[in-house]
């Protein structure tokens, strides 16, 4: 200290305004790594709800649904055999965030939760406080899970953020969101079944319907998370996200879950009619679990879904431009994926089904590393449970031993075309006990086997076996109990199913 005198101090003081002026002139990205872990990359995990890889031109779909994802693919690792661990939001998201398969995390139902004793095992907690951990989901069921992980989340936005109108009652009960969600959103103010509250429930519903403005820009209605009183415009949503990403302190981990292109498929008018090309998807045999949707209706829905995907892709393109222009992509991992797919065939529309066909579980996964300029295709089978270990690894964390995922190829994981990944639907089984009724699927190499257990429609264990390399549309069920191949796969999937069914459930 004795080397500094009053004159030196005054010189230093004079430099303060200059430094301040300089700080205002330099781009914000220069100062991003000012939080707890200087130099650490941001991670933006962008989850589109219900985005089936089978409908994306970036994965070879006939219609040009995703030109902007294709543009992104030129600077990202593209996973061509990536699977969600489940066929609907709750287990799908839980697997992404916990790195655990559904039979372990046990969030098996629409409004289900991760096994309470495992709630601390999630990506937010594992990242630690060096990161600003941000989360936002438009899907109320995913928000429900995020709320379960909230001790590890620094900033959790409500589902209604960036919306035109929201009357979601549970958002008024911030200290008890899960219970409020179960009781208010799904019972007293139920949007699917008769509301349990006669005055408030009906009043809310009437007010919502009267307040929802018709917009000429959305001839099929303004986008709305099915079953919940929220309406939003994709443009406003993405503008809001851009502003949010601009303001987040670096390094940040951002989980962003967008409801589109989930049904109802409500594209902006600019995208309506773009696929009136007369093309029809090959007709497939009706499933035992068919909902009775006619082929014509399904094909009409396919066009609507594809148009909605194109709309979402357009907005993604704007986001991509913004991230490029602001330099965020030079300092961030950008992950684009989905929680599950959508089935528009075999008499089924949607994903609330026991089926695990490819369009339901094969989802996009594209990851760009900071500053990546080349695209990279990866064909090995991968699973949504791989995201947690991979993202922890790239951010310098130790991969926890409890995760059931592996490092993704391209990020330290091995390229293994014969790797086995699993998918499960068990929404008709209890979270606390054995999986008495479930569909379980296993992909290994070019083969995929499906086991249906406990369904009254079948009355016994039923298997399907497909060669995805030669029959990616799953037209030809190869299962024949007389062949060695079928015997091997059926024995193996039963063995695995029995193994996962030994996971001790919690008792009430």
């Amino acid at each position, binding site marked *: 200290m004795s080397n500094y005198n009053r004159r030196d101090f005054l010189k230093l003081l004079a430099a303060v305004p200059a430094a301040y002026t300089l700080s205002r002139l330099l781009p914000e990205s220069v100062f991003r790594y000012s939080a707890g872990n200087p130099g650490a990359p941001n991670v933006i995990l962008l989850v589109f709800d219900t985005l089936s890889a089978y409908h994306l031109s970036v994965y070879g779909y006939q219609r040009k649904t995703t030109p902007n994802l294709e543009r992104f693919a030129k600077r990202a690792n593209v996973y061509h055999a990536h699977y969600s661990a489940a066929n609907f939001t709750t287990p799908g998201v839980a697997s992404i965030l916990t790195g655990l398969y559904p039979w372990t995390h*046990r*969030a*098996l*139902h629409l*409004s*289900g*939760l991760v096994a*309470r004793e495992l709630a601390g095992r999630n990506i937010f907690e594992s990242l630690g406080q060096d990161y600003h951990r941000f989360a936002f989901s438009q899907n109320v069921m995913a928000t429900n899970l995020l709320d379960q992980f909230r001790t590890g989340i620094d900033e959790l936005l409500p589902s209604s953020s960036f919306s035109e109108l929201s009357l979601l009652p549970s958002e008024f*009960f911030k*200290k*008890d969101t*899960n*219970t*409020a969600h*179960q*009781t*208010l959103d*799904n*019972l*007293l103010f*139920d*949007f*699917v*079944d*008769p*509301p*349990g*509250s*006669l*005055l*408030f*429930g*009906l009043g809310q*519903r*009437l007010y919502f*319907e009267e307040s929802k403005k018709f917009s000429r820009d959305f001839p099929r*209605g303004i986008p*709305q998370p*099915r*079953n919940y009183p929220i309406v939003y415009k994709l443009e406003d949503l993405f503008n809001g996200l851009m502003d949010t990403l601009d303001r987040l302190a670096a390094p940040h981990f951002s989980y962003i879950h967008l409801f589109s292109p989930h049904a*109802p498929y409500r594209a902006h008018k600019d995208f309506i009619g773009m696929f009136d090309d007369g093309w029809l998807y090959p007709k497939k045999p009706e499933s035992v679990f068919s909902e009775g949707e006619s082929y014509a209706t399904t094909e009409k829905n396919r066009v609507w879904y594809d148009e909605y995907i194109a709309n979402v892709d357009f907005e993604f393109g704007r986001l991509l431009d913004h991230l490029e222009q602001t330099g965020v992509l030079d300092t961030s991992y950008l992950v684009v994926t989905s929680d599950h797919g959508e089935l528009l065939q075999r008499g089924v529309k949607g994903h609330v089904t026991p089926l695990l066909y490819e369009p339901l579980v094969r989802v996009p996964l594209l990851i760009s590393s900071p500053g990546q300029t080349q695209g990279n295709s990866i064909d090995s089978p991968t699973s949504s449970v791989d995201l947690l270990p991979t993202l922890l690894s790239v951010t310098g964390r130790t991969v926890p031993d409890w995760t059931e995922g592996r490092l993704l190829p391209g990020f330290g994981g091995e390229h293994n075309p014969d790797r086995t990944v699993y998918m499960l639907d068990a929404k008709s*089984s*209890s*979270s*606390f006990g054995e999986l008495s009724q479930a569909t379980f699927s296993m992909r290994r190499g070019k083969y995929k086997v499906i086991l249906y257990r406990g369904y009254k429609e079948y009355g016994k264990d039923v298997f399907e076996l497909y060669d995805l390399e030669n029959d990616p549309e799953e037209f030809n069920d190869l299962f024949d109990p007389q062949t060695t191949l079928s015997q091997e796969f059926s024995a193996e999937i039963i063995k695995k199913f029995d193994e996962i069914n030994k996971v001790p459930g*919690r008792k*009430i």
Partner: protein
Amino acid sequence: MNIRNKFPNAGQVAQVFAVASIVIYGWTTYRLIQKLPSWLYYLNFQEILSNTSYTLVFDFVETLLFIGLILLLNFLLPRKFFLDFFVARGSLLSVFGLGYLIYLALAVGASKATQFPTDLFRWSPLALLVILTLAIFLPRIETIRKVAEDFANRAVIFLYILLPLTGLETLIFVINNLL
């Protein structure tokens, strides 16, 4: 004129409150029972108990609101149109009015999320006017009045169960949301 003379006594209010409670709590309980099997699949006992706290608190507030509306109506209408047979008229209004709301709730549930039955709601003011007229004039028939009054009188017994239960659940609700 003393304004208190425009209102029924506490006992009469309690009887109508009891009738309204039975319909409001009953409907919610019916819907809750329908949800219960799925809740048992993924919620534990403590969580289900917390859920019921919300339903009872909301039901209680809803019943208070409904009684408030009846008292307002009673205040606005001439004595001979409501106060004279307050218990019978209030009870009939509770049963018919809330019954109509149940009908609307069922229609909304059947219509699913994207096809709201707007036309049905457009006719609701007329339907509610008819219900009000019936509630006002039916008690002039002695048999109907006596049945309504007897039912309301016996319904009070339910308050001995509902109110302490609601109090307990309100406590859980408050603890969950404030502490």
